């Protein structure tokens, strides 16, 4: 008998939702020691299935049919006290957002000890001892310090390890991992995946792993389920699904994964359009009164590069490497301490007042989060024309231009009179791009512009950017932590580590033949490389 058997499970959404059932007729089984990946895009019902398992569905959402059999008992028929006893003990769960998954006011040790307390196990000193052992087991450095730390003192990857430690505390038979690595950068993601794999082997637990990233699936899954609109469209052994998908949706998802392929560098014009020399940016934080020594963070050090007309330069690196800070210095949202930033020959690194205002239109930004970067109370038309009107265009021509821009980015001009919340994430990002284009800037800075999007949407937005680049001869700085994405859109790539440019050159050279150990480690951490190799071998065999 399987450890877990879900049989024709349906989950009803409250009235007024966009569809009746969040999950429809879903069936699958999971055995001891097995890793099953559920893959799908946002809204496919994959998280809902997991939450139903834990009995943690949001209010108003209820299972309407089917059964969830765990060790012979139907979880849907259990009372709340029975579920309480199960949660955290036999089935535990880790979540997507490590930054918010821990109580900010409680020490790490207390939060881990709580798991034992919830199930009335061990004495307080024993709980503490176990907490230390767990922190050690999930590979946190210096458990003695960590146990007394508060969540904000740990990095995202470390917090995710703490969450995993809590989930493992009582050696559950089933671990549900809901996009546990989506919010982490590649190197941390690779470490967390290794950890889960390792723990599975040592404790023999079953893992239900929810993700939208097929690269992760390729690395970790024994079996795969692909979900779309609440239904299972494909299921099977990981190798089979990945190499020989039968359903068109699976194929589309697989095709949407950016491949590590390189672009050729564009021909460099005589004059660079943007020229950066020795740019430094240091943050000094002064907290805790007059008497403490201020903390100094060298976010960007001696950044030097030229961007030519029609070229895209990628800036890659882990979180905290200074890539976003560099971008913000170029747009002059921050004023760099030292160095020169020239656009069309004019140094803009120190200008202020009206000169700065005039400069702003020449370099525009596309932001990461399409949900928070558009004012929710402004109509799209207002968002697109605001800049133009501020620079003196009359309202009628500004609106004409905005309509034109909407069709350029593939949206219907009727979008003018609608509000941001009426659009999907991908559509909003198109609006964000149109907004950046409105002022005919010479340079566009895209800061993780596709990172928050599902793979298929991500592919569409990347296509749009590539298309715009060719049509409008755009020059672009593309900031990303995803090396595949960088490879796809960038002519040249800058690799940043702790504020310094450790490598800079044509994409093919930097990613194909990296010169530093750091770049190599970033490349090694990309999930799904084994699958890519298998795919290449398969293609060769067919040819």
């Amino acid at each position: 008998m399987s450890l877990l058997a879900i049989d024709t499970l349906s989950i009803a959404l409250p009235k007024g939702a966009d569809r009746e059932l969040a999950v429809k007729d879903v069936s699958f089984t999971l055995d001891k020691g097995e890793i099953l990946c559920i893959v799908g895009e946002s809204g496919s019902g994959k998280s809902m299935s997991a939450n139903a398992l834990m009995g943690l569905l949001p209010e108003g959402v209820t299972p309407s049919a089917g059964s969830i059999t765990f060790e012979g008992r139907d979880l849907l028929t259990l009372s709340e006290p029975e579920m309480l006893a199960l949660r955290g003990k036999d089935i535990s769960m880790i979540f997507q957002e490590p930054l918010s998954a821990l109580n900010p006011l409680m020490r790490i040790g207390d939060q881990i000890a709580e798991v034992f307390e919830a199930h009335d196990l061990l004495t307080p000193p024993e709980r503490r001892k176990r907490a230390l052992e767990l922190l050690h087991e999930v590979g946190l450095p210096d458990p003695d310090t960590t146990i007394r730390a508060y969540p904000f003192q740990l990095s995202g990857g470390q917090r995710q390890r703490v969450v995993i430690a809590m989930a493992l505390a009582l050696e559950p038979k089933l671990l549900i991992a809901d996009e546990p690595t989506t919010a982490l950068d590649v190197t941390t993601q690779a470490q967390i995946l290794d950890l889960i794999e390792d723990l599975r082997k040592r404790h023999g637990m079953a893992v239900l792993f929810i993700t939208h990233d097929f690269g992760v699936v390729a690395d970790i899954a024994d079996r795969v389920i692909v979900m779309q609109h609440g239904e299972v469209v494909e299921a099977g052994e990981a190798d089979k699904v990945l190499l020989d998908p039968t359903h068109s949706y699976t194929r589309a998802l697989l095709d949407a994964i950016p491949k590590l392929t390189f672009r050729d560098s564009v021909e460099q014009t005589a004059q660079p359009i943007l020229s950066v020399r020795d740019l430094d940016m240091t943050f000094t934080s002064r907290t805790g009164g007059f008497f403490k020594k201020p903390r100094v963070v060298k976010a960007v050090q001696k950044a030097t590069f030229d961007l030519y007309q029609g070229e895209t330069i990628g800036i890659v690196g882990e979180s905290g490497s200074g890539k976003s800070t560099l971008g913000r210095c170029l747009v002059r949202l921050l004023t760099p301490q030292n160095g020169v930033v020239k656009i069309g020959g004019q140094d803009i690194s120190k200008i202020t007042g009206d000169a700065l205002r005039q400069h702003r239109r020449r370099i525009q930004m596309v932001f990461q989060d399409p949900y928070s970067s558009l004012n929710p109370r402004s109509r799209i038309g207002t968002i697109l024309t605001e800049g133009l009107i501020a620079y003196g265009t009359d309202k009628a021509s500004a609106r004409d231009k905005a309509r034109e821009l909407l069709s350029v980015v593939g949206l219907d001009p009727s979008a003018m009179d609608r509000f941001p919340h009426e659009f999907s994430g991908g559509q909003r990002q198109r609006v964000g791009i149109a907004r950046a284009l409105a002022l005919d800037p010479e340079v566009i800075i895209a800061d993780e512009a596709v990172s928050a999007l599902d793979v298929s949407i991500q592919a569409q937005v990347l296509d749009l950017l590539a298309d715009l680049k060719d049509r409008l001869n755009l020059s672009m700085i593309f900031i990303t932590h995803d090396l595949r994405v960088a490879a796809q859109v960038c002519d040249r790539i800058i690799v940043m580590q702790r504020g310094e440019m450790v490598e800079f050159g044509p994409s093919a050279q930097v990613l194909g033949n990296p010169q530093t150990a750091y770049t190599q480690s970033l490349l090694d951490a990309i999930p799904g490389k084994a699958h890519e190799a298998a795919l290449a071998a398969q293609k060769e065999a067919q040819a």
Partner: protein
Amino acid sequence: MLGFIAARLVKAVFILLAILVLNFVLIHAAPGDPAAVMAGEAGAADEKFLQDLRERFGLDQPFTVQLWNYMKGAVQLDLGFSYRQQMPVAELIWDRLPATLLLTATAFVISIVIGVAAGVLAAQTQGTWWDTLISSLALLFYATPLFWVALMASLLFSVWLGWLPGFGYQTIGADYTGLARVLDIGKHLILPATTLGLFFTAIYMRMTRASMLEVSRLDFVKTARAKGLRNSVIQRRHVLRNALLPVITLAGLQAGQIVGGAVLTETVFAWPGIGRLMFEAISQRDYNVILGVFFISAAMVLLFNLITDILYGIVDPRIRLAQ
């Protein structure tokens, strides 16, 4: 933490001095001559008498010298002399302070305890008639002007029902001692303290409810549920503690008004505190008393702001330990 407190104290001293100057300038910018008011009331308005008065109170000296003298005194806690009451201002305030502190502190405790408890209850019962009832009452108390509530409470409970005394600090002429006196004062305290606390009770309730509901949706609450913790533990340990952070900010605001915020209530209920002292001083143009009360209230606001910040640091490690 100690460095933080020291830095804040230094800042507070400068702010206090600035407030002293500002108060002094404001009062002197207002039309009217205190000497003329006094002379008028004494019934002798000839130039000689006025000159004598001005000399006696130092009003003939240049403005800057007057300011300097006042500041010099204030630093030594000498807030000047009330020519109306014929007493040093500091002594007047000192006499009235206990009554005010008793009233405002009671109101403070009442509003926090009832407000937070009602807010928690409303959040727990969100969408039920309990929630509707509590939220409606809070809205009512929030929207009703304090003086009206005070008058109506006095009318209802004191005049019509006769349950509680409607004015004063204790029963005049009863001369209770010991427990009887405490009970007597307590009985007098109920109406004014409840009335005064009503507005903040409503605010705490609304803030606690909104904050609890917001925190309940955060990811770490889901983590806590996934651990298998009972709901009561989750609500107390994870939700409430985080939800109280904004309530502390508000409590700091209310505590800052602990000296100067009871003018209306003290006046309606004839409570012999600082608020009524100020009311009387204003109607009698007793400038030194007004200045003194202003100064003490400002100092209290600063003090409680500091306490709020320290408390925040204790509750929230992100503030305490942030580097």
